[in-house]
């Protein structure tokens, strides 16, 4: 569920096809996203899941985002 929502956000923000966005996808390298794209994806995730993400550091793959959000939700 978390993955699907994050996938949809990335697809919308970067104009990609859903199949291009998997758990192992490197967001900046494989999806050609720059730092502003990543900031925007994080903002959308914050709103969608009602979580706070202080820094973009450590978010390389889609899995990193999913793991963080799931960790926040169990708190």
């Amino acid at each position: 569920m978390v993955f699907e929502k994050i996938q949809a956000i990335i697809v919308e923000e970067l104009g990609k096809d859903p199949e291009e966005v998997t758990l192992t996808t490197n967001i900046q390298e494989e999806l050609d996203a720059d730092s502003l794209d990543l900031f925007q994806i994080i903002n959308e995730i914050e709103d969608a899941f009602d979580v706070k993400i202080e820094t973009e550091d450590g978010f390389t793959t889609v899995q990193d985002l999913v793991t963080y959000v799931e960790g926040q939700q169990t708190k």
Partner: protein
Amino acid sequence: MDQYTKISCTARYVPSNVVTNDQLSKIMDTSDEWIVSRTGIRSRHISIAENTSDLSTKVAGYLLEKSGKKANEIDFIIVATMTPDFGTPSVACQVQGRIGAHQAFAFDISAACSGFIYGLSVADKLIRTGKKCGLVIGSETLSKVIDWQDRTTAVLFGDGAAGVLVEASPTQYFLNEKLCSDGTRNESLTSGYTENKNPYYKETEEVSKYLKMNGRQIYDFSLKDVTKNIKDILADEKETIDYFLLHQANKRIIEKISKKLAIPREKFLTNMESNGNTSAASIPLLLDESVDKGVLKLGSNQKIVLTGYGGGLTWGSLLVTL
């Protein structure tokens, strides 16, 4: 009789030295493509010898010339800047002296990229309480606080100055305003640190005096707080606004704000392409350029929103009729 504030003249001055992205790529590891795709900026003006007071004095002179006002008719001079020549005197006092506005009181406002909005808001109150005529100038020589070794910030900023002459009027032109600050996020954008210096003080850590910005925090601030601020000031006026003049930091931020507000992108004027981010000068630069191009016309009753946002954190919007 009640009197209100009217913007009756606009003017600008930028240093003649234009620096393109390609020129920057010769002195640091960057490229035109990198800068344009992230910011929309193609070139900026970088002062060679002129300081903030010099740029401001030019603008003040143009405002007098264009409006036909005499220097001794000016009641007050406000300069918004984060790059003054000195701690004291203020840039505004330097301008007052140089143009010979002997009747005017003069002071600077420190509110970074929101400085012009704050200054215009204060000017409005001065007029509303009896003053007849004043100058509000946003002016920056950001090139002197940029770390030219830091390619992530050096490419973003430029130098320039612009301002308005405001006068008392029986008609209300300033319709609404909302100014905000949040000092808890003061470290998100800092510049010009001056350390303690006395026989009793021992330096414990080195703090950069250069302009430093936390990209993620500033992006978040721009998209969330600034968008909300514009929403708040609009109330039910959204459809009646002709143009939005936002602080010119980044084209993509403006595109996102327009999308979040569901307001057509073409209503958001931009000129960061040729100026870069000029902090307090960016909004009046855009205002005067738009007047020159005929997009905006003083006295036309066009309704515009002016929005600044930057270090402090500070942000705010004014809804005015031209």
